[in-house]
């Protein structure tokens, strides 16, 4: 029998409450703008593509939604120019911080 049950129970419930609060805040706010992330991705890619050749399949978009701030991370893999070089990779991480993503 777990004697700490009363404490851990309260703890897990408060974790649940906080997770739901964050999630629902984002989902309610997103109501009309569900496509915001794809739009941001396309526009950021377009800017980068003006200067460097970009393979659309080599783009990773990550998000971490937080209480006050969300972190959007767009990682674009850029191939090294001379094709003869054996494959070192460079990545350019475009980080956009926004409170309302």
């Amino acid at each position, binding site marked *: *029998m777990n004697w700490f*049950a009363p404490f*851990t*129970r309260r703890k*897990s*419930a408060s*974790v*649940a409450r906080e*997770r739901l609060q*964050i*999630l629902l805040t*984002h*989902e309610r706010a*997103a109501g009309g703008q*569900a496509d915001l*992330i*794809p739009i941001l991705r396309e526009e950021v890619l377009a800017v980068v593509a003006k200067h460097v050749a970009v393979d659309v*399949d080599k*783009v*990773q*978009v*990550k*998000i*971490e*939604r*937080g209480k006050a701030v969300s972190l959007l991370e767009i990682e674009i893999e850029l191939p090294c120019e001379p094709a003869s070089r054996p494959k070192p990779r460079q990545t350019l991480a475009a980080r956009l911080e926004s409170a309302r993503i």
Partner: protein
Amino acid sequence: MAQVVVVTSGKGGVGKTTTTAALGAAIAQSGQRVAVVDFDVGLRNLDLIMGAERRVVYDFIYVAQGTVRLSQALIRDKRIETLFLLAASQTRDKDALTDDGVAKVIGELRETFDWIICDSPAGIERGATLAMRHADAAVVVTNPEVSSVRDSDRMIGLLDSKTEKARRGERIEKHLLLTRYDPVRAGRGDMLRVEDVIDILSLPLLGIIPESEDVLRASNLGSPVTLNNSRSVPAKAYTDAAQRLMGVPIPLEVPTDRNGFLSKLFSRRAA
């Protein structure tokens, strides 16, 4: 070769999502590559149970429609390296899921994963039939309660007629997973017994998951039951069930009202 497993039940609230997450995590822990896939378009919850709800960017529909590649939509679990989640869309209409789209995504998943575990929505509509369409095996989640057993029977009928395997004239492998089982109530005769359910549905038993507060606690924390407290009774039951699904013959014991004092204590608390 990849195994596609659908977790289904017909009735809602019996533990499909909990089961998908728990079995997926347990199999991945043994080193196999596992993708858990949410088919509940518009009402996704597998992301929440897996604790990845804040990290969903692209979902199933994006991949199905070819907007992004599968690798861009898969979310890697932070605890187990070989466990991945493909979320359902929360904002699209459920008709956004098409036959071709599902076939494409499952086909791609088969190339890179050992196990693809599909979390079916409740009901018998499109989402549920699409979740089972490409399955090699099914886990029918059932509560020892009349409406759940009846709905499970209906799903067994659909598995035998609506899946690709059934259409090819092959047999789809079906397993019964009994969840929220309370040995005290079953002992008192207030709950359908294990033998009763097996008898009615005539499916081989994959496992019995006892009713337990550990399940709710794990979902509060966003952790599959098998990872949150691996020594808890439901975690052990799910881990054993996962082993059996992988073909390891682990003997199955029906939980009984054995230790009178403790179980009386628990029954009073549960009542």
